[in-house]
């Protein structure tokens, strides 16, 4: 019987580059920026790292194939470097690889890395790409906003909600994240926006307007992980440990089967349930201190509140408008500004989320720091689209909690 990952692995150090349109910096520059911060935080030498996992999603523009670009950028002494790709959940996958390597005892210290240089495409939004030989003949490649906008029509139909009410609720999601991002020096977008601005922005894919969509940016983030014993031996007294790592992947049921109504993420529900069990969390709404969710679009964040079980089904609109997820609310969501303000350099995003939870639990979040001493931080990293996706739920927390 598997015992789960809870408290078997601790975070020794983390780093996060400033996200944004880093026109003058290469992927290597971004990688080094994040890595040097993590290395200093961990207070180790690069030679102490036993293996590395690199999460990157796009091939065509970006760093190219294999783990070699990371090994070269960081001049890692010849060690196993594994590149992982699992759509937008690639960052969480890199973290999972490193954490599992340490938990298995194969290595003492492992590196999880995510980097993505997307602002070399020549246009806004995510790069257009093939989805495989067969899909390209019978599927719709679509755009990310187009796929996620469908949540809105389905959610409205399911709960009989007026267009305007949902639009206001998702606008609140974006206004809240911009408020938070304004306080974060590493965020890409640091301007507050008003409800009117969000509500009146041009449509990208109805009902999603410009401010309902996260941006695309360049960025890098990483984590150095080890066992709690080694972390303490290296002089760390306050530890943030991994409580749960859960991933669920679509097998085609939502797309091809029958029964899914298009208003929720099956995999997030499955992954959240598994993560809570692994972490020993029985009442997420009461026990979670913080959430960093995959707010690629405002409506994604809204329905994810229900998928994660922190809002009742059909109750997310009320919770959002009541401010439950605001920075000063019951469970802040995107207290760092989220994808909304960081942008979404795919491979880096999952690790950027964990980075904020790590800082908050250690009381190092500066102006954004929650006063109530956070215990459990959940990050939710979603790859794909509503009808075909990979959902990763990572919970980190105070050692012993």
């Amino acid at each position, binding site marked *: 019987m598997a015992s789960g990952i809870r408290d078997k692995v601790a975070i020794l150090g983390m780093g996060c580059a400033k996200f944004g349109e880093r026109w003058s910096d290469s992927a290597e520059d971004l990688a080094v920026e994040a890595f040097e911060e993590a290395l200093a935080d961990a207070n180790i030498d690069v030679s102490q790292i036993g293996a590395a996992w690199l999460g990157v999603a796009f091939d065509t523009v970006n760093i190219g194939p294999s783990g070699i670009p990371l090994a070269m950028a960081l001049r890692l002494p010849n060690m196993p470097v594994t590149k992982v790709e699992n759509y937008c959940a690639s960052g969480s996958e890199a973290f999972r690889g490193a954490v599992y390597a340490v938990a298995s005892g194969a290595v003492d210290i492992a590196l999880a890395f995510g980097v993505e240089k997307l602002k070399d*495409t*020549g*246009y806004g*939004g995510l790069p*257009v*790409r*093939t989805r495989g*030989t*067969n899909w*390209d*003949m*019978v*599927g*719709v*490649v*679509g*755009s*990310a*906003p*187009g*796929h996620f*906008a*469908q*949540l809105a*029509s*389905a959610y409205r*139909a399911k709960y009989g909600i007026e267009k305007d009410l949902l639009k206001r609720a998702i606008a609140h999601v974006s206004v809240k994240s911009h408020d938070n991002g304004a306080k974060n020096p590493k965020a890409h977008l640091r301007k507050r926006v008003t409800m009117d601005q969000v509500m009146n922005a041009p*449509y*990208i*894919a*109805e009902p999603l307007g410009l401010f309902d969509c996260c941006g695309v940016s360049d960025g890098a983030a990483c984590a150095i992980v080890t066992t709690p014993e080694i972390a303490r031996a290296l002089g760390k007294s306050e530890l943030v440990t991994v409580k749960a790592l859960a991933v669920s992947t679509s097998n*085609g*049921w*939502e*797309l*091809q*089967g*029958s029964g*899914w*109504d*298009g208003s929720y993420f099956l995999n997030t529900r499955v992954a959240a349930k598994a993560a809570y069990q692994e972490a020993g969390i029985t009442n997420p709404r009461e026990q979670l201190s913080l959430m960093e969710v995959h707010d690629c679009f405002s409506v994604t964040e809204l329905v994810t509140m229900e998928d994660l079980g922190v809002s009742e089904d059909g109750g997310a609109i009320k919770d959002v408008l009541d401010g439950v997820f605001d920075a000063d609310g019951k469970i802040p969501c995107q207290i760092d500004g989220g994808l909304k303000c960081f942008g979404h350099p795919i491979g880096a995003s999952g690790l950027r989320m964990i980075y904020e939870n790590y800082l908050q639990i250690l009381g190092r979040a500066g102006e954004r720091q929650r006063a109530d001493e956070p215990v459990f931080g959940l990050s939710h990293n979603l790859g794909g689209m*509503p*009808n075909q996706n990979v959902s990763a739920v990572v919970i980190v927390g105070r050692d012993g909690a």
Partner: protein
Amino acid sequence: MVGIHAFGGYVPRQRLQRNAAYAATGWFAPGLKGFAKGERAFCSWDEDAVTMAVEAARDCLAGRDRSAIARVVLASTSHPFADRQNSTIVKEALFLSDATAALDVSGSKRSATSALIDAFHAVAGGAGDTLCVAAERNVAKAGSEGEYNSGHGAASVVVSKGDGCAKLIGTHSVSIDFVDHFRKEGETFDYGWEARWVREEGYGKIVVSTIVAALEKLGIDAKKIDHFVLGSSMPKISEYVAQGSGIRPEAVADTLGGVLGDAGAAQPLILLSHILERATPGQLIMVVGFGGGCDVILLETTAAIVGAAHARGISGYLEDRAPVDNYVKYLAFSGLIDLDKGMRAELDQKPILTAQYRERKSVLGLVGGKCTQTGAVQFPKSPVSISREARAIHTQEDYPLAELPAKIVTFTADYLMFSPSPPAYYGNIEFDGGGRMLAEIVDVGEEGLEIGTQLRMVFRIKAIDDRRGFSQYFWKAVPERRLSTKS
């Protein structure tokens, strides 16, 4: 005896308002003002002769057992492929047996009447039921007379042994190299000669003399003709030929010039199909095709004509229209103007021919799978069933989805994804009886879409590979619209 046993048609939904064309080009060609009335049908960016042929054939075959079809013949002067059997694409889209013969016919505006005559002969000789389809997507130069007068459309008939709803009385053909217009291989536009010469020497002499010879050969008095069908882009030419041939003026069939335009090679079959919708038993119908000679076909309706027009037909498709006042939109859909598509359109659409062949039932036929163990329906077929009830492997039978109604589960209007006709509508759809797919939704009207909107599937171009000159076909959904003239 042989005859026409079923008929159908298709007209694209977009209708260019001719006064809008004149408003845009009248400064350049003021002499064409007389043509600036009514409307003409034109293809959306994702339609061509093959896709229209498929729709016309489906209309014709609605409710019929397709297994009887032994041959598919497609006539057009605008076949999308010069070397790839276009009629075979139609066969695949209709999910007909591989043991079906297929033949492309082309070369002139009478290619459809010649194909129909050939079908009568072939069926009489034992060739088996023949699906004879004609489709045309002719493109005229901007600001030309042809732009006003041409139109896009398709029609289809099933020729079979027995009288059917319109039995064959006889045919007559002449071949004469009278070049009123021409278009060299690879060229887009026709080059035509003076209209007065074409009218007097072509229609007035060649066509009239062929009709007179046909009537004499068949021993029929011109006055007995109840419906006279002649497709031409020239105004009043049917009346002119009828008068010269002794055919009663009231027998002259509506050429649909004001609502559709002249669909070239397809026009005689479109007009025939349109007449068959309203013909009564015992009527004589003459169909004439002109181009490099002349074909005359004489048919007589039977008692079976009553109720034979059961599908949408030409009338139904004519009613389902979207007036287009935006001349530039017409130019864009016709490939006559190069709008900036943006970088998102640069995605390589190279066809993967091995995969397309392997998956041709799914791609061209929209054939899914039905699990024999659980009954689960899915698209496309896969080694392991989608069913959650059992892990069933290699249990799916072919399950054609194209003719099944569907409804919207979720949808979007996407302004970011590249589409030649933004916004791109797509969503998860579910077929009646099960089976889901993510589908593009086209021909969306002003009424928009809702969850639960009823859909039907249409065969369209999915992507165009300009670099290699390939059209990738697949199925899309259109909102089902209730028509006043059809149940």
